[in-house]
């Protein structure tokens, strides 16, 4: 659920015809002063953060003059609130408040419709008020096809105990509020307080919109960088991960960082789940063992090996983790060897020095476990694969033992070397990368096993050298599924002539910065 800041939400409301206080966002104290001067009235300064209860944190201040606004803005900017540092504040006119109301929109999973809530009391403590005074609250289930009629809105406001001019003004505001939420695909929306001023106008004095992640693609105008539910701005690593997901529609990859700085003495691990329910259950199992998660990651929905590889590379960009835990439902419908190959490519490149327990139950799990065992055995730390009959609890215990045996060694992030393709190598583009075959090495190969390993069977021999059996365009369009089987086979059984370069934009620079600091 992509959250919008108050100032962004208010801009949308205003465009939709809802009255909001005059104001602008400021990124510096000087800007705050300029805005206050323009408004030429006492102003309110509000920190912009994805949390409620800002007043209690001292995040809302009043100023009577531009000087005072500048001074107070200077104190608010840079303030630390939970996980985020305040980098912007909203400076707007202070309203003369006569009364406060509340309007909210949620999507009701039981009735499967938007539910509009109006309360004739608003402001802080609305939840408490709702419990104590249910008669002040009115709710309306909206038919998405028909939309919200103004007469319906009037009845809603009336039921909450308001009449007259205020009632009609509010009803009009509510229909516009719903229209904005609907057209912007908001999963939830809220105006609190909804203010009646001394001169009898209604204003949205505060507003929060949460946009449906799945509909963000319809709204490029919103400039949402990472369409995920966060209560803070995304970290650098999360942004890198999101770019990977954006560019590859195959399967789903979700990455959430719990901490950017792993404390020295705490048992953190990298977590790589597969599928929501299985991931959650697996997470519960490792947390029960006293581990903490550096990150929560989920690759599911039949992702290609290349996507799992990128996920692993991102997880292994977190210094200080003591182990790697991958586990899904235990019975995946997809072929599990793809994930195994993705992990092996990443672990090999990283010279993995912390143990990994990989629970890959599902279709062809035997093959997946064999791949992990055979190709992971020469790594500095142990890699073990488990299947459908091994419980997550058992796997979590095994990780605990392995970490102990490994003397609690902490993962060190390595720099990513500049990729230098061999100029004369045979190559073709894949959907998200490029495959190189160093044909000079091929004469030494007896088995030509890359042909057999290739899952989509798109390679053929030309003399003693493997080349594409399809057109390069077809390979690039996705016929090469980036299953990584040819590379893994050639690397471990033959001449190490094949490499599939799968860039992760920003990761190299990210690691460099990490190593510098």
């Amino acid at each position, binding site marked *: 659920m992509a959250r919008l800041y108050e100032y962004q939400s208010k801009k949308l409301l205003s465009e939709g015809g809802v009255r909001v206080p005059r104001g602008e966002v400021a990124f510096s104290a000087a800007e705050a002063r300029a805005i206050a001067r323009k408004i030429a009235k006492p102003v309110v300064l509000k920190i912009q953060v994805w949390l409620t209860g800002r007043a209690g944190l001292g995040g809302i201040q009043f100023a009577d003059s531009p000087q005072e606004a500048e001074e107070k803005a200077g104190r608010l900017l840079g303030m630390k609130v939970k996980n985020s540092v305040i980098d912007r504040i909203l400076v707007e006119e202070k309203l003369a408040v006569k009364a406060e109301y509340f309007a909210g929109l949620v999507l009701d999973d039981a009735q499967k419709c938007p539910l509009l809530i109006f309360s004739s009391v608003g402001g802080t403590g609305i939840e408490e008020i709702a419990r104590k005074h249910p008669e002040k609250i009115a709710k309306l289930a909206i038919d998405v096809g028909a939309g919200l009629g103004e007469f319906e809105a009037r009845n809603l406001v009336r039921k909450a105990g308001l009449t007259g001019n205020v009632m009609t003004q509010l009803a009009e505001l509510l229909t516009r509020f719903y229209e904005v939420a609907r057209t912007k695909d908001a999963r939830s929306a809220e105006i609190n307080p909804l203010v009646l001023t001394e001169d009898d106008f209604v204003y949205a004095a505060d507003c929060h919109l949460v946009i449906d992640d799945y509909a963000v693609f319809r709204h490029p105008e919103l400039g949402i960088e990472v369409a995920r539910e966060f209560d803070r701005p995304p970290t650098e690593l999360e942004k890198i991960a999101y770019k990977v997901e954006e560019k590859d529609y195959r399967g789903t990859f979700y990455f959430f960082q719990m901490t950017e700085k792993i404390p020295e003495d705490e048992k953190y691990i990298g977590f790589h789940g597969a599928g929501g329910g299985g991931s959650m259950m697996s997470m519960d199992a490792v947390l029960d063992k006293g581990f903490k998660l550096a990150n929560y990651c989920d690759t599911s929905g039949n992702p290609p090996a290349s996507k799992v590889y990128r996920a692993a590379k991102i997880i292994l960009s977190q210094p200080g983790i003591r182990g790697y835990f991958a586990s899904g439902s235990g019975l995946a419908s997809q072929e599990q060897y793809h994930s195994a190959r993705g992990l092996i490519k990443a672990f090999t490149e990283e010279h993995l020095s912390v143990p990994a327990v990989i629970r890959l139950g*599902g279709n062809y799990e035997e093959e997946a476990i064999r791949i992990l065992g055979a190709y992971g055995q020469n790594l500095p730390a142990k890699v073990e694969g488990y299947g459908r009959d091994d419980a997550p609890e058992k796997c979590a215990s095994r990780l605990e033992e392995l970490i102990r045996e490994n003397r609690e060694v902490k993962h060190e992030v390595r720099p990513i070397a500049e990729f230098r393709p061999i100029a004369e190598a045979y190559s073709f583009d894949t959907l998200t990368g490029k495959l190189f075959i160093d044909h000079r090495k091929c004469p030494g190969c007896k088995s030509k096993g890359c042909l057999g390993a290739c899952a989509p069977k798109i390679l053929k021999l030309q003399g003693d050298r493997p080349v594409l059996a399809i057109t390069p365009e077809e390979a690039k369009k996705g016929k090469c599924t980036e299953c990584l089987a040819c590379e893994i086979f050639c690397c471990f059984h033959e001449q190490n002539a094949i490499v599939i370069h799968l860039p992760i934009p920003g990761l190299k620079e990210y690691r460099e910065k990490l190593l510098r600091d």
Partner: protein
Amino acid sequence: MSILVDEKSRVVIQGITGREGMTRAKLMKDYGTNVVAGVTPGRGGQDVYGIPVYDSVEEAGEKQGPIDISVIFIPAALVKNAALEAIDAGVKLLVIVPDRVPIFDVLEISGAAKEKGARFVGPNTLGLLSPGKAVLGMIGGRAERAREWFKAGPIGVSSRSGGMTSAISYYLTQAGCGQSTIIHVGGDAIVGLSHPEVMELFEQDGETRAVAMFGEIGTTQEERVADLIESRKFSKPLIAFIGGKAAKSGTRFSHAGAIVEGNRGSYETKVKRLREAGVLVVDSIFDIPKKAKELLK
């Protein structure tokens, strides 16, 4: 017996010529699902694994006769139109496999379905399977695995996680407890058939003697199952597991959600409500087959 689908149900696959559609058409056909047609606009006249392809659901119905179910494999952004097309053509059960379907689209589909007396499973669902009869969607991945993992029997399975639908059913099979129908209700916040609606169907099914349910934090589905039991609309033994125990309850951004749902949605309230209603809530997935076995004795 089974719920929602059996070997006689006449099925159409929308998006049959796409990457997923084609793969899963094979799974469904191989498993025994009565797939009578595929639909991809502009591809009418082709065939996929011997399944004739038509330009529209309506045309498929004209040429092949009445259609009971449509399974949809269409990119998320286009799902709404595909679903509305199927509903308009008179299909009464839709299985919407894709994930990332915009939530307002789901609400619109729901409105149209209600009007025409249709139902839907998903979106973001692995589908459903009645062992030995038919599979809709992608459960099992391949027919031979689906045959090995799932066996016919008296336990209904309803899950909010796709992987766990398979896993729980497989562990039940291992313990000697077959399944009547296993269903992944979908992973999204708003889905067509949710747990309580599935429970009502299992209640009506003569073969189902007990139900296993995989719940998760968020939504009111599990609480509504408890309500259903208390209002005596569901009376069969129910074993439940709720995922997400360790997930910290998220910082609430919305007061409105809290006003509507109260404390519904959290791990604690779900477990408490279900236990109050007499549901057997277990702490480990592996306790589900154990308890099921005891129940069947």
